[in-house]
């Protein structure tokens, strides 16, 4: 059996797991799940962090108001977590949550609406010395009312179409109001929430341990006795799984690592694959000539044959899906027939490249040499950079590919020391208000490194963000996407593929499009 057949068999096993017959298998209780985390958490405070390295070990200690549930290959839904039900007013200015009763914190204190109020006040208006990394996403919240112990009402000053997604953000862990009263920094010291697992121990740089919370509010859950997260370097995941040290790594592995594991462990592993709400793009420095000229930017995006590149790249890297500024396959994605009309997405690459050469000539640009700044992280940034450099060569453009370590990379972007830079977008959900921030004017966006100013994009962005009706919002997001791609301040390269390899005994874990979500581990069990 060759490796691709073995891989197909392993993937087949996954679909087997997802089949109704497999669903009928009753979850077993017990066992400790060992998993790898390929980075170390800078903090245990969900509100202060932006990294999965915190969420994977820490999130199972907490619950949120809402959460995402399901599998990316079937359907991901927004469901209540601590909220039993929720309601959005027609004007989009009021959100009412009916909360679960009989929910307990790990210290035995009962959960009430006061905990929701204290948590969100910490996010919206953090006290001095408290970092709230997503404060701006919640700035429309003007009041949080608690008419009774099990109702929380959020009042907004303007409608915010992303608000329900924000309430389901995995970073919005609900903290104990009582503990926060005693110490606003308690989550940084010892995680304590209403989640399925109780914090046991953390050995810095090594392991994070947790045990089952027997009074968790979902009856019968969690199934595991506990879990142990191992903080390791990415290159240790394959030998670690092979040697039986871990059962999983949930962020995502490369195709090569998947093949190595399937080859070595054969039917002792299952593979879950799907699209990832993470993309790699390339941004031009519009403050530098000739990148201030839209014709040059369009020429450079038109030179890249994304579709042909996707085939080999998807075999060696996480890069796989061709799409616009929204994830292909998501509810926001531009239909192919519309996307194909935009610069860089034409179906005839020879024609595109001829057009690109003409655009460069019209702009008076000859012998263009580009300083391309990239991260020195091999996967998938190196293949992305090399691919673009080789594609540009085909229209006579040379590029110097500089791969810098994180600190210098961000500094080069902030100081404008680049002609073009490889960037990435990674969010917890497909939401245009999150995914378009890089493309609105630099004076409005903290993460626009192109330096572009575009009043039309800003207007469309603000309009979509405040449009609650999904159909109307979609029209606006599509208009935004078309304009942004046409202006080509940035050019989307690829959306990533998420590949998660699990030991076959790990059951009940659902693949989400984001590696930030779906990690409370309440439904995970071990078939042993």
């Amino acid at each position, binding site marked *: 059996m060759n490796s691709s057949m073995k891989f197909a068999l392993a993937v087949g096993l996954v679909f087997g797991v997802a089949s109704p017959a497999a669903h009928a298998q009753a979850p077993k209780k017990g066992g400790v799940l060992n998993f790898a985390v390929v980075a*170390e958490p*800078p*903090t245990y405070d969900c509100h202060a962090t*932006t*990294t*999965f390295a915190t969420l994977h070990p820490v999130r199972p200690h907490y619950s949120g108001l809402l959460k995402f549930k399901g599998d990316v290959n079937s359907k991901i839904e927004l469901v209540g977590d601590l909220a039993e039900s929720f309601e959005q007013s027609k004007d989009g200015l009021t959100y009412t949550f009916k909360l679960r009763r009989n929910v307990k914190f790990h210290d035995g204190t009962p959960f009430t609406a006061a905990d929701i109020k204290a948590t969100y006040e910490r996010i919206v208006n953090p006290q001095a*010395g408290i*970092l*709230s*990394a*997503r*404060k*701006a996403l919640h700035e429309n919240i003007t009041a949080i009312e608690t008419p009774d112990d099990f109702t929380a009402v959020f009042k907004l000053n303007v409608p915010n179409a992303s608000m329900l997604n924000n309430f389901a953000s995995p970073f919005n862990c609900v903290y104990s109001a009582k503990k926060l009263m005693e110490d606003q920094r308690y989550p*940084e010291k010892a995680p304590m929430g209403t989640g399925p697992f109780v914090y046991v121990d953390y*050995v*810095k*740089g*090594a*392991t994070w341990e947790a045990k089952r919370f027997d009074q968790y509010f979902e009856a019968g859950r969690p199934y595991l006795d506990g879990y142990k997260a*191992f*903080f*390791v*370097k990415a*290159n*240790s995941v394959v*030998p*670690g799984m*092979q*040697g*039986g*040290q871990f059962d999983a790594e949930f962020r995502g592995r490369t195709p090569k690592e998947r093949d190595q594991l399937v080859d070595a462990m054969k039917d002792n592993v299952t593979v879950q694959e799907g699209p990832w709400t*993470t993309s790699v793009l390339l941004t031009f420095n519009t403050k530098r000539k000739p990148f201030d000229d839209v014709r040059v930017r369009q020429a450079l995006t038109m030179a890249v044959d994304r579709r042909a590149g996707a085939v080999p790249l998807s075999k060696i890297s996480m890069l796989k899906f061709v799409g616009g500024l929204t994830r292909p396959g998501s509810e926001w994605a531009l239909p192919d027939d519309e996307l194909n009309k935009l610069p860089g997405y034409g179906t005839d690459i020879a024609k595109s490249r001829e057009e690109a050469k003409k655009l460069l000539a019209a702009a008076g640009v000859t012998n263009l040499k580009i300083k391309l700044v990239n991260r020195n992280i091999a996967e998938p940034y190196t293949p992305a950079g090399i691919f673009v450099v080789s594609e540009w060569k085909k229209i006579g453009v040379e590029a110097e590919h500089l791969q810098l*370590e*994180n*600190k*210098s990379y*961000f*500094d*080069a972007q*902030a*100081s404008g020391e680049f002609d073009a830079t490889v960037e*990435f*977008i*990674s*969010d917890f959900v497909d939401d245009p208000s*999150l995914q378009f*921030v*890089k493309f609105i004017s630099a004076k409005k*966006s*903290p*993460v626009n490194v192109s330096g572009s100013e575009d009043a039309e994009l800003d207007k469309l962005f603000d309009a979509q963000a405040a449009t609650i009706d999904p159909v109307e919002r979609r029209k606006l997001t599509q208009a935004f996407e078309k304009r942004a791609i046409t202006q080509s301040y940035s050019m989307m390269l690829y959306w990533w593929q998420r590949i998660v390899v699990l030991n076959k005994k790990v059951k009940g874990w659902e693949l989400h499009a984001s590696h930030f979500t779906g990690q409370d581990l309440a439904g995970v069990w071990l078939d042993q």
Partner: protein
Amino acid sequence: MILFLVRRILLLIPTLIGVAVVTFFLIRVIPGDPVVVKLRADGAAVTEETIQAERKRLGLDKPLYAQFGDFVVGLAHGDLGNSLWTGQPVLKEIAIRFPVSLQVAIMATIIAILISVPLGILSAVYRDTWIDYVVRIIAVSGLAIPSFWLGMLMILALLSWKNWLPPIGYVSIFQDPVANLQATIMPAISVGYRYAAIATRMMRSALLEVLREDYIRTAKAKGLFQKLVVRRHALRNALLPVVTVIGLEFAFLIGGLVVTEQVFNLNGIGKLFVDATTRGDFNLIQGLVLMIAVIFILVNLVVDLLYGLLDPRIRVS
């Protein structure tokens, strides 16, 4: 002797002040903002307001001279500040990792001494015989094979043949000696081999030189057995450069196991150093550089004291 010790320890102070000042300013010259790395490295669209708030919280909004003032005051009180990344005291961050690197360094040193001294002696005494050639091949191989590569080979070999890996995560030797040794013996061997190769070559060349000395010839002429000549007259003198090499390598290993710690997933000082540098964690880098400077100075002091023990002439001077 006591005066010598006091003088050497007092010399520590200006050396450390120099190291601290140079490190403080050098790492801040390197471009980049640790807060941006911390908050945006995973792609989050964190606002400038949040970035500024975090800078303020960490004290990075202060002018450089004020930050330096805080650092000096802290240093005078034995406080190296908090990690910009985790917010934990730098000393605590180091203290967690130090035993791991120290243990591997000690084990590697023991392995190196056990291998290098006998092999070096054999090689020198039986110069240009098959024994010498074999030892030289072993030593040259040790120098040529990078420790991390040897480590990777060991891991792959164990995985392929035994489907076993050393446990990930360090357990104190006092808590669980078996688990501790399982986690540390392979890195110690992979590092110790290279270390032994250096020391073996040094042992051989130093002993060869001593064996050519007049007093050795005299001892032999008096009819003393070769073994006795080597043990009583040559070895002590030949050990001086070997002790120097072993001392320097030991000090280097405390912070220099960078790649080996990554290969074996050891949570040691080398890994911490790499992480701190990548993240631009100024306070932690400063603490680590100071710690390594102290170790080098102390190891040099021990080496100097050992010189005195091995050679009475040095003791007198």
